[in-house]
């Protein structure tokens, strides 16, 4: 099955300008600008609406989504995205310009305020900003808040400590904020090694960034001790919210001693991932850090709600107010579940991970795990096993990460899968377990596209149809 590029179907080159002199005010069809201010021509695909509808329909059918089947990508929390949240977000009354006077968008402010409040309760945080447009942006926000806090307190701290098993964004975000990254090796039990932490932490420590449960699903049992060590050294504790779906209603970062956290609403709160985005990465902080939040922030006022600039605000992380539509969907999802639903979501997410883990023929080195686990394919190449799983009509887990597990298959089924689906997944895993390397290396066999050559893609980058034409 092959769908031609739009450019291979039909393109038109439009010539621009010619007659106009820029002073023409007759409203006719001549170019309204002098030629020197315009481009000469524009060539783009030109297709009718029916042709476009078929193009995109066919392409969609060549794509796997959460409604296609299980999507157990570890650390990605690929939940079902309730369609009613789309309807809620589509409300035309929410489609306002971001520069509107805040007194004229009381409804939008109220929704934001309520979501700030919900997130604060769920995370045990005192204040929450909704502005960061993604998890990584949330991390940068949080680290900038830590930096501003330290600077305001006359502390010149240069290091951020991050476990080796952390998400890559942690490292990159800390570096973007100008920090040196101190990488913390995992202990034998897969958790933070307190001795290593003790060695790393000190007066240069601006913050420790931690995911809990960590990226193999283990709860950092020593979190209270960890928090004490970091705080005693004058550092702050940052919580990476990627794995929050494990803990809803069971534990809160704020209660564990974290000072700053981000929420991945496109994970925990079921907003769709959209093929890579948009997400949203709200950041919660303890009261002491509230004055550093990005501006503007929403608060209650006499008249209802208003925007204001926190006193020591770090500034902005988005040109406007972040990813509004995503935030509305998150609000709707949280409202749908409520206390009991949120708590149940985590319970079922953890149950599903444990059940699936129990059905696999592969070793799972670390436990007890919560919402996700890292199985090891041992002698087999995890990436090949994943490709082979495609032949069974399921999406494979995250592979070869984190590195603490050799040939890792980081698997997070989420709460939405049924036992039957988990059994299907287990069958797909286990079928690959017995196969020879040649079969695996050649997989997948049953997909529209066979194994794709990554090396030539990178060696000879062809990143546009113009690049293809030039060949």
């Amino acid at each position, binding site marked *: 099955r092959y769908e031609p590029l739009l450019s291979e179907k039909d393109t038109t080159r439009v010539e621009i300008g010619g007659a106009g002199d820029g002073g023409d005010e007759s409203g006719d069809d001549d170019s309204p*600008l002098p030629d020197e201010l315009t481009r000469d021509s524009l060539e783009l695909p030109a297709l009718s609406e029916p042709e476009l509808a078929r193009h995109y329909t066919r392409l969609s059918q060549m794509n796997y989504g959460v409604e296609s089947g299980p999507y157990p990508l570890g650390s990605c929390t690929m939940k079902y995205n309730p369609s009613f949240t789309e309807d809620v977000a589509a409300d035309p009354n929410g489609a306002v310009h971001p520069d509107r006077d805040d007194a004229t968008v009381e409804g939008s402010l109220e929704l934001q305020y309520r979501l700030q409040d919900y997130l604060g309760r769920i995370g045990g945080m005192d204040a929450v900003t909704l502005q960061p447009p993604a998890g990584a942006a949330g991390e940068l926000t949080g680290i900038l808040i830590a930096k501003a806090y330290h600077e305001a307190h006359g502390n010149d701290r240069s290091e951020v400590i991050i476990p080796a098993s952390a998400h890559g964004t942690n490292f990159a975000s800390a570096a973007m904020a100008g920090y040196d990254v101190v990488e913390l090796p995992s202990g034998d039990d897969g958790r933070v090694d307190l001795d290593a932490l003790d060695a790393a932490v000190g007066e240069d420590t601006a913050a420790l960034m931690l995911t809990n449960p960590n990226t193999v699903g283990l709860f950092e049992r020593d979190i209270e001790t960890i928090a004490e060590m970091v705080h005693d050294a004058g550092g702050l504790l940052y919580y990476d919210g990627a794995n929050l779906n494990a803990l809803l209603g069971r534990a809160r970062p704020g209660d564990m*001693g974290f000072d700053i956290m981000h929420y991945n609403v496109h994970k925990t709160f079921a907003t769709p991932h959209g093929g890579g985005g948009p997400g949203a990465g709200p950041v919660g902080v303890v009261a002491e850090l509230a004055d550093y939040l990005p501006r503007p922030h929403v608060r209650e006022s006499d008249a209802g709600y208003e925007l204001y600039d926190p006193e020591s605000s770090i500034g902005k992380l988005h040109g406007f107010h972040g990813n509004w539509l995503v935030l509305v969907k998150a609000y709707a999802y949280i409202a749908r579940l409520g206390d009991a639903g949120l708590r149940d979501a985590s319970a079922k997410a953890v149950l599903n991970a444990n*059940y699936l883990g129990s059905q696999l023929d592969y070793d799972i080195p670390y436990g007890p795990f919560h919402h996700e686990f890292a199985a090891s394919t041992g002698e087999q190449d995890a990436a090949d096993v994943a490709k082979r799983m495609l032949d069974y009509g399921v999406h494979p887990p995250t592979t070869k990460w984190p590195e603490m597990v050799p040939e890792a298959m980081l698997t997070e089924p989420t709460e*939405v899968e049924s036992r039957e689906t988990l059994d299907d997944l287990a069958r797909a895993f286990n079928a690959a377990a017995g196969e020879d390397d040649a079969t695996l290396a050649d997989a997948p066999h049953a997909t529209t596209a066979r194994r794709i050559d990554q090396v030539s893609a990178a060696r000879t980058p062809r990143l546009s149809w113009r*690049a293809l034409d030039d060949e």
Partner: protein
Amino acid sequence: MSGTPFAPHTPAETRAMLDEVGAESEADLFDIPDGVGFDGVFDIAPRTEREIRHEVAEMLSRNDDLVEFMGRGHYDHYVPSPVDHLADRSEFLTSYTQYQPEITQGFLQVLFEYQSMLVELTGLGVANCSMYDSATALAEAARLADRVRSASGSTVLVPDSLRDGKRAVLDNYVTGSDLTVAEYPTSEGTADVDALADLADAETVLVYAENPTVRGCIEERLTDIGALADENEALFCLGTDLLALSLLQEPASVGADVVVGSAGALGMPTSYGMGLGIFATREDYLRQVPGRLVGASEDGRGNRAYTLTLQTREQHIRKERATSNICTNQAWVALRTAMHVAHLGPDGMVDLAEDCVRYARDLAHRIDEVGGLQAPVDDRHHFREFVVSTDQPAPAVAGDLAEEGYAVHVVGEHEIQLCVTETNVGAVDGLVAALAEVGP
């Protein structure tokens, strides 16, 4: 309802699964020390679909229903219906980043086509899959300049009229580098190129200009700005938007090294500022590009296939040495934008862009005829928007206009700014009448 409606487990199934894993209860599965366990309540009441739809509709209905004549970097263009219907197909909407390209060829091809459209529109060789918005795209451009020009200096020059939102994001993104941001003056709504020439020097690593500018003016000396940057071995970064690109000077032709800006003007409704950042640059800087790139390759049968490529630039592989921390991006918005561009086609793009010149020109002309109002303030050609000066205090004028049902920008003590596109052009008669009432 005692649990999430989105998990399929009956009590019996839950019990059976617990038995299978050897747990007494769900609580037993949680390995949480007593000291940090939570057994309180959030006090969030669950509501039904129907109740939430009603609740949010009710809440948002408290936004004042104003006809917006607003722009300054965020624009309202009519999004054709097929964009909504096709982009909402769950295979697109609910998919993740394409880590398994063999089963995500559809989205990859859409992103490849999106990149290709940007290559056509900018004339540059490379475009990424998306940044969050125009502000973060500009900030990433500065960081790119830092990487490729760090030997030569550390100054980023931006216009003094730069939106606060962009400036504030830029400041945050360069906080970890040696870059300093300085402003150059503007005049009549566009760059004061002579003053810029005085400021640009060997320390300069990036010169940023916009077309159209934040006041809606079409920049007339882009080539000069590009040459200035070039002379000082700085990158020339041009800020623009997708529709402007279809009509105004091609960035590559004026020497732009990076194009950033907003694509969200096409593909998205005015979602309180949610959008999509364009990022395109010369092939020279390919390996310094932030964000995701889709490339063409072949599959095992020799058929063309698409895949994410050059991932060694990215955070999940390069960690603290990545070109950016961006991971989740705006892919689905890019998909919508590509659909909108495809729906308009080149004729539709150019027609609409020309209309946006005419609409602004004609509205300014009408307003200028009202005593006490001058428009446009800047002696330039305009794209979509322009500044109006009034004898009255601008905030009062804007407040009075809001009473009449119109939302506008206040950009100075006696200056308001108006933006007009196909979506509000039908309301200009009312606006002009209201302005004639409250403005002079």
